């Protein structure tokens, strides 16, 4: 029964949180008030842990919340509840898109969407860089970070290595430089 409630509550979060993982935070806050599954300070911890672990933020949050309340099975239940609405919604949209792919209006909608998406990813990139620079203390470290970033850029443009390789390289350099 408790699993059903857990599933249902996170199903609702998945259904109504539109956008990235951060969009789930208000809903989780609401859950912490409604049930005694986790406190607000635990929620803050969750956000911190989710942000620095691999995987989508929203999924990490659901798993963490589920485990905090009902152990491993709770984590699986909450995550499953969270992602299920996506499955329904996307399948319906995919069917619709396949049918109307050549429709002029659908085409012009995507013509408008593409530049907007490119800009939003661009702004994400700038935000990420400014977070890194804010974290870095001292002019010496900042200069090293900038040089390192330029080196990464050169490597990425020059060689078509797998991103996993670069991510591991980045982790390694992060440890080495501290």
């Amino acid at each position: 029964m408790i699993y059903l409630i857990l599933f249902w509550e996170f199903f609702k979060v998945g259904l109504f949180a539109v956008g990235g993982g951060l969009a789930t935070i208000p809903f989780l806050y609401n859950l912490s008030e409604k049930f005694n599954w986790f406190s607000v300070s635990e929620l803050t911890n969750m956000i911190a842990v989710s942000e620095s672990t691999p995987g989508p933020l929203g999924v990490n949050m659901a798993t963490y919340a589920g485990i905090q309340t009902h152990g491993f099975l709770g984590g699986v239940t909450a995550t499953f509840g969270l992602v299920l609405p996506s499955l329904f919604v996307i399948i319906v949209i995919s069917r619709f898109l396949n049918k109307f792919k050549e429709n002029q209006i659908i085409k012009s909608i995507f013509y408008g969407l593409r530049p907007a998406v490119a800009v939003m990813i661009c702004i994400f990139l700038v935000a990420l860089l400014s977070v890194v620079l804010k974290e870095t203390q001292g002019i010496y470290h900042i200069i090293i970070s900038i040089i390192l970033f330029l080196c990464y850029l050169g490597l990425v443009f020059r060689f078509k290595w797998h991103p996993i390789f670069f991510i591991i390289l980045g982790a390694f350099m992060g440890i080495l430089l501290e």
Partner: protein
Amino acid sequence: MIYFQLFWSFFKIGLFTFGGGYAMLPMLQKELVCRGWTTDDELMDYYAIGQVTPGIIAINVSTFVGYKIKGIVGALCTMVGIVMPSIIIISLLATGLTYVWDNSVVQHAFKGIRLVIPALLLPIIIKMLKKSLVDLGAVCILILAFIANFCFGLSPILIVLGAGCLGVLFSRFKRKKV
């Protein structure tokens, strides 16, 4: 076999994505576009739709790709694949491995990774801009989206909806002139 490939690709993507939906773009591009599973244009469309539909963007995009390649079972494979690393890692953390995360070596590694992601994203953004800026109308949409997001902090959902409307509007206008 293709199901396992789908699962494995998205398992890797989930494992090496730090920081949510947009940060997984370089991984998606390498794993999917290079294999011929999707095109760059389709990926952008998935992001645009994932942004305005319920659920977490990363999950929505994964479901889209899985469904496109192998129907509902394919969608389930990609979904389980991307969620699995989160469940494993968060479970380990919650059951008492938190000291690993407070460890300064791990924190430095994450700092290092944050510097790599922008470098991985830049070539993709340039490619996207080249492809999406097909005429003056698209440039207008790009500038408006930038102002709306960067200067006014408008929600991505509203920007995607607005960009879609402008796309239809500009296309109409173009056809009338011709």
